[in-house]
């Protein structure tokens, strides 16, 4: 990116990562089939290692292009913003499907469920115990991530690191509480459509919390290593958008599935 460039776009260099990522996805898929059919996990583990290697190296290259080569001009950033918005919209519809399944099953419970919701024999979790604490934890993390953003915009390096670290810790605390709640739950994923909708919806949300926490941890590392400036920190903004999205999904899960559904 040295020298004069008569246009604002980023023309990417040849990269092996799309091919490597595709091969990793293929290996992981066949690995899952091998696990399901032959109870052998070696190919699945290999596929997972390949996926992780792709993620690390591909995103490392994106950081190189952004922070070290200066390829992310305002035009490029505009494309990245739109891409992230579309990605989050697709995630909204992903969760919409699970809420659809939940309401489909709970608004008109079938005879097999005892024509009641929660179904006969299923004892749901108390919405005003750990789930309420989880709500408070996630809402607080939404506050601290906004604090981090303002600290970043005002060039307050130490404050940004501290607030981002608190956000990550709150995310990990949430994951720990959810894991404990799953362990303690008196029903399983196999306990009628209640268990299925509950664990699929909250489980995918938990997966998204883990992904969001990882994203924020990467942002924390980049902030420690001076990658962000007060005006150029889209990686952090994307993580914050994603975190708010995860937060909002939790509010819907809490109100619909934990509270109304019990």
């Amino acid at each position, binding site marked *: *990116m*040295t*020298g*004069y*460039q008569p*246009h*604002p776009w980023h023309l990417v*260099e*040849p*990269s*092996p*990562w799309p*091919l*490597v990522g595709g*091969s*990793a996805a*293929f*290996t992981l898929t*066949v*690995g899952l*089939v*091998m696990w399901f*059919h*032959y109870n052998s996990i070696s*190919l699945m583990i*290999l*596929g997972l*290692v*390949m996926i992780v*290697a*792709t993620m690390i*190296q591909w995103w490392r*290259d994106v950081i*190189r*292009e952004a*922070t*070290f*080569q*200066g390829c992310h*001009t*305002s*035009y490029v950033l505009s494309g990245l913003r739109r891409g992230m918005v579309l990605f989050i919209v697709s995630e909204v519809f992903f969760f919409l499907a699970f809420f659809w399944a939940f309401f489909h099953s709970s608004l008109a419970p079938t005879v097999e469920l005892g024509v009641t919701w929660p179904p006969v024999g299923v004892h749901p979790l108390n919405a005003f115990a750990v789930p309420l604490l989880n709500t408070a934890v996630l809402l607080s993390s939404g506050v601290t991530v906004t604090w981090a953003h303002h600290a970043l915009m005002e060039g307050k*390096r*130490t404050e940004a690191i501290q607030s981002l670290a608190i956000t990550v810790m709150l995310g990990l605390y949430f994951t720990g509480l959810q894991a404990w709640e799953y362990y303690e739950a008196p029903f399983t994923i196999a306990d009628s459509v209640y268990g299925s909708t509950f664990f699929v919806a909250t489980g995918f949300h938990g997966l998204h919390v883990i992904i969001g926490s990882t994203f924020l941890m990467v942002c924390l590392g980049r902030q*420690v*290593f*001076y*990658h962000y400036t007060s*005006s*150029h920190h889209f990686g952090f903004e994307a993580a914050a958008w994603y975190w708010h999205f995860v937060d909002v999904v939790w509010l819907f899960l809490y109100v619909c599935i934990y509270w109304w559904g019990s």
Partner: protein
Amino acid sequence: MFYKFNNISGRIGAASQQAAFRPEGILPLTQAEAPPLIFGSPVKPAGEEAVAPRGKPAMVRNKVPEMQQVMQRPGNLLFVKRGGLDAVLYRGTMGLVVVGVAYACFGLFQAMMPKKSED
């Protein structure tokens, strides 16, 4: 306040935020170094001590300028730009790709031809 280098006057002047962060369209500079700035009193350049509170030395050194030089050097493709470790990681990953895809194809081939049971 945002600043931008003015090609015509050769000075740094006020600019809008948008203009300050749009490097595209700037013509190549004729002079390699910025004109000397004149201050009323000696000015200490902002170093790392400026970002660490109360004059304590920064715990982490800012390596971004060095990395910018390394990554903007012409030569290798981006994914092996840093040399040694990059090349090892890249070759290791490509090795995994060959092994993984071959193993997956072999597994699929095996699954396509189930053995007939004896009974």
